[in-house]
């Protein structure tokens, strides 16, 4: 209806890559077997799943036995925290959970549930004004009785990348299981499980040009663990349920492409992101970048604008044909300052005016130029309305 629409919300989801789509298609109808079946149909499907597992394991510098396929990144997060916490309690009476305040809700709500319904002590690690965890703060808080530590690899709202490797080292020295939610980073960053010293790591395919409805959990061998979903013994008994073969194939194909094209993607995205950040801060008064200026995802720009209603801004931008996101945005018109921005110490007069622009492989300079023609006016119009 309006001009050509421009999608600038690749952190929300991405379109499925053509090559991924092509890899998935045979597994809907031609090779539709159940990997658990004895017959040849089952064997073909099983081979596809195990090939996919090998691909993911290789990309993560890990073993195939350490990859658990799930239905999404959130499931991977749930599985990891719950599975490690409960097992640690049974094994060694550990009752303490340590997470950052900038976790995705899949982690924080799971941890809160473990606190309120299972009696765990939940402790939050502080973050700095960029939303970054200082590894020393983990070292100071970790105890022999810590069941699990979880720190997000890069935050979805502000794009800050945490020092996962250093936090991992601290946990490894004390022999405490460490999980990281890497859902936002798979599209652009390298993920070497040995270098990162993680015991568990979550990914979700639709954030890296794969299909929605499939994720994976890296689970280091010999990590004490209790499965959540029990049943037919699939995934070595760690996650029951018939394998979603085409989607697992899709996840692996997308993961492989992400690894192979990482340099190319970063080379494409970084100048675009930097241009967007510089121009926005230059053109708009009372605008701040949220998250770390350097240690941030190469496709991620996030801002707060003082005295702006973020929901209103998103609406005005959408009407102009630009699809973005906001930490405070809410589809039901009930905006609240985001937990993440609050944890970073941003006051609500700023935090309610948040805007996230995330770029993808298709994003062009021209897209951003036309976006930057619209953004300052939209912010100004929001401010006029707030002032009224």
């Amino acid at each position, binding site marked *: 209806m309006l001009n050509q629409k421009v999608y600038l919300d690749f952190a929300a989801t991405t379109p499925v890559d053509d090559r991924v789509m092509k890899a998935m298609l045979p597994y809907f109808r031609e090779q539709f077997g159940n990997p658990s079946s004895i017959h040849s149909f089952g064997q073909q499907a099983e081979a596809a799943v195990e090939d996919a597992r090998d691909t993911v394991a290789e990309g993560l510098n890990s073993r195939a036995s350490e990859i658990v396929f799930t239905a999404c990144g959130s499931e991977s997060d749930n599985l990891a925290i719950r599975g490690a916490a409960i097992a640690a309690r049974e094994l060694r009476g550990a009752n303490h959970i340590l997470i950052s305040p900038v976790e995705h809700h899949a982690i924080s709500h799971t941890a809160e549930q473990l606190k309120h319904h299972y009696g765990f002590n939940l402790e939050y690690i502080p973050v700095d004004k960029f939303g970054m965890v200082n590894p020393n703060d983990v070292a100071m808080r970790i105890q022999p009785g810590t069941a699990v530590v979880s720190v997000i690899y890069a935050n979805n709202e502000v794009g800050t990348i945490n020092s996962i490797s250093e936090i991992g080292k601290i946990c490894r020295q004390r022999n405490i299981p460490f999980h990281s939610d890497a859902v936002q980073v798979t599209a652009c960053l390298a993920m070497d499980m040995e270098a990162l010293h993680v015991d568990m790591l979550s990914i979700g395919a639709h954030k890296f040009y794969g299909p929605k409805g499939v994720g994976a959990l890296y689970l280091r061998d010999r990590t004490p663990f209790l499965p959540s979903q029990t049943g037919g013994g699939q995934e070595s008994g760690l996650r029951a349920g018939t394998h979603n073969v085409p989607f697992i194939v899709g996840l692996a194909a997308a993961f492989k492409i992400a690894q192979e094209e990482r340099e190319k993607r970063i080379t494409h995205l970084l100048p675009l992101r930097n241009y967007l950040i510089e121009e926005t801060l230059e053109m708009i008064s009372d605008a701040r970048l949220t998250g770390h200026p350097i240690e941030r995802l190469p496709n991620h720009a996030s801002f707060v604008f003082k005295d702006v209603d973020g929901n*209103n801004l998103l609406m005005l931008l959408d009407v102009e044909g630009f699809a973005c996101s906001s930490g405070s945005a809410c589809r039901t*018109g009930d905006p609240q300052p985001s937990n993440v921005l609050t944890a970073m110490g941003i006051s609500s007069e700023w935090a309610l005016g948040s805007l996230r622009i995330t770029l993808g492989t298709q994003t062009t300079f021209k897209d951003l130029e036309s976006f930057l023609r619209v953004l300052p006016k939209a912010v100004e119009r929001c401010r006029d309305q707030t002032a009224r």
Partner: protein
Amino acid sequence: MNKQTRVVVAMSGGVDSSVAAALLVEQGYEVIGVMLRLWSESGLEAHNQCCTPDAMALARRVAAKLDIPFYAIDAKKVFRKEVVEYFIDGYTNGVTPNPCLVCNSRIRWGFLFDKAVSLGAQYIATGHYARLDHNKNTYICLLRAIDRSKDQSYVLHMLNQQQLGHTILPLGGITKSRVRQIARDFDLPVAERNESQDLCFLGNGSYREFLFRNAPYLHKPGLIIKDDGTHLGVHQGQAFYTIGQRKGLGISAPLPLYVLEKDILANVVIVGQKEELGKIELIAESVNWISGEHPKTPFHAQIKIRYKSSAVRGFVTPHDVTRFHIEFEKPLRDITPGQAAVLYDDDRCLGGGIIK
């Protein structure tokens, strides 16, 4: 021809506003659906009569079906300030306010109107049953709906020419049953919700419970007296009684007694028999004339004194720009301060005012 004309439709997830949006899409307008998130008492959001999460999900689905953008806009603060405070103030001052009128003039044709302008829209549209006539006169006429039983011109009588000039009411010319048929034709996933006469922000409760919670100072017992001064009982606070009310007075008398009047200063509720209830005249203030021009001479008109009452004949004398006087042909029982007296010349709504 309408391709360039952008319209914001106030959507509720109900059949009327959904069909209004569908008709505008069909007529070629560039339509944007908007739902206002209105204020609810904390904890009772799910009981709001018009903007629950369910209703919002439904409106969003309708918009997706029609392939139009849809946005929920936070209007809680402005609604609390403009409408809920008006409501509480009205009861505090001893009248029976009609907050829907204020909601229309300040929220829909105020707050939302401004949002629509900022979205680049030329018009706002709603699912109200009333018609606008742009052609016959020099000014825009507000007319009753073709479906008389659904007519909602009463709650639009406060709109001015500027507002009416940027308004489209797609349902005024069709019947409710036709609207339902259109919803089926478009395969719209709208709920056939019961049309609620209650105020959205009261949730499932009564206005009395609401006032108890939100304006506890109104719980101020006083005397119930007859107009000769005889004490008959005790009331719980004048705000909880409405003119014409019979039930719930808690007094026994040989003949049924009705609330005739309330004296705020003395904090008494005055009751009497049915025959005493009628009044033959009223004064209305905060008057709006649809034409924008206030009549110089008295005239006969049909008058509605409540949203759901039928029109009766009376003689209207404009006093000044903000007030008029009505003398009815026969006494009326339900003249209630705070409600609107809306004037009609046959189908044409002339304007109205708030009964003093």
